[in-house]
């Protein structure tokens, strides 16, 4: 009797969760990214690498079609209903309407969803029973060796070449750039991606005033770019992340989810 009551209570309590969990978790392939030590090129108080445990990551960025399912299930994230605190006016502007991808829906469906805020990405990940990767996780995953790159470029050359090019008018579909050794697609070359702690402190801590920090950051960055082009690419990503606010919706910024291995 007690047991039955407990079970009933459990099911009755389920709807109380903020986001109903999706039943389609099986739909998106996740791959294992081995753990390792993450060496930030930025100076921290301890100067020690950050240990990262092995984790799961979506093999591709979340697509417009996938995000549409989320918005359907969570009306408060529809374009016309979303709170401006959590997503700016560019939110999902590539769509024709709240639940309409427009006449190019077939094509758009398979491209990475962009113009999504950090809050929206967080909410999506939570709905999927996943989370956003940390900066350390993302950088480790992104450093994975490509299977093959055009013109046999090195990954660093490939990244810098991509950073140099203007955004494509229409984003290509996922899986159109390269796959890396972990089985992840398009880590570089398609879009920029949100990370859980994108607002990490980007300079040595405990300084008195932010202006002082910015100066330090600038000096370090100048020196770094001359020494090591690989770090320069990472620095560009750090600067990009540092310039973001959680509500920003940008035409080349999307996300993919991660999950801890229990």
């Amino acid at each position, binding site marked *: *009797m007690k047991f*039955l*009551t407990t079970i*009933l*209570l459990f099911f*009755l*309590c389920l709807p109380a969760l*903020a986001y109903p969990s999706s039943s389609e978790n099986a739909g998106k392939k996740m791959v294992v990214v081995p753990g390792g030590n993450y060496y930030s090129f930025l100076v*921290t*108080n*301890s100067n*020690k*690498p*950050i*240990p990262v445990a092995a984790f799961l990551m979506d093999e591709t960025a979340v697509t417009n079609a996938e995000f549409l399912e989320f918005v359907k299930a969570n009306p408060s994230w529809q374009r016309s209903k979303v*709170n*401006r*605190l*959590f997503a700016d006016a560019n939110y999902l502007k590539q769509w024709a309407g709240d639940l309409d991808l427009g006449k190019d829906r077939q094509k758009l469906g398979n491209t990475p969803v962009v113009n999504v805020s*950090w*809050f929206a990405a*967080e909410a999506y990940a*939570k709905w999927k029973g996943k*989370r956003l990767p940390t900066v350390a996780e993302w950088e480790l995953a992104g450093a994975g060796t490509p299977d093959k790159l055009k013109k046999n470029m090195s990954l660093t050359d490939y990244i810098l070449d991509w950073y140099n090019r203007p955004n494509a008018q229409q984003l290509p579909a996922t899986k159109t750039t390269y796959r890396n050794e972990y089985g992840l697609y398009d880590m570089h070359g398609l879009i920029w991606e949100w990370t*859980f*702690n994108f*607002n*990490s*402190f*980007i*300079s*040595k*801590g*405990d300084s*008195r*005033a*932010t202006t002082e*920090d910015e100066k330090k950051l600038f000096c370090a960055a100048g020196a770094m770019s001359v020494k090591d082009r690989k770090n320069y690419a990472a620095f560009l990503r750090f600067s990009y992340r*540092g310039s973001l*606010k*959680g509500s920003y919706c940008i035409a080349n910024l999307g996300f993919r989810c991660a999950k801890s291995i229990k």
Partner: protein
Amino acid sequence: MKNILLLASIALLLGSCSDTNKNTDKKPDATSVVQAQTALPEASIFNITDTFTNQHKVPLQLTSLRGKPAVVGMIFSHCGYACPRLTADMKIIHDKLGPKAKEVNFLLVSFDVARDTPARLEAYAKETELTPDWILLHGNEQAVRTLSVLLNVQYEKDADGNFSHSNTISVLDKDGVLAYQKEGLEADHTETIGTIEKMIP
């Protein structure tokens, strides 16, 4: 029989739910009456629904702080340099407000979700001689990160479990809308205090 069981479960469920609610509202400065009156403004930071826990181990949603302006700082209690100063800066603001300080919520939220348990925060409040009206909050990683994003506070945990972070004092109006921010330590608080005083009737 099945029906009775179901009814009993629902009754139990409702019972347990209302108990939880009571606990949440049982704070000295509960403003549930105000809450019931109008919806939160869109820009209110109190729109986040995560549950935090205060230094007295009482669960709390930010919306329950509605009704008073709030001064908010983000810190970690093991911090050797900046955080004691940030706390000291907030104490200066508290003291300069004099008796009016009781019309304002003073909030310290910790980045250090692992070490800054409610008990540790209570000890920190004693160490730093904070008066009982201060609210020190512990939250899960996601809740604290979300708040930091809304307050434009940057922080990062290093390999030793300490944090690099920006130092910002935020002033929220009585509906939780960000009204003013001061960056840096040992800054001039005149404008911060002026902003708060304008919010107090």
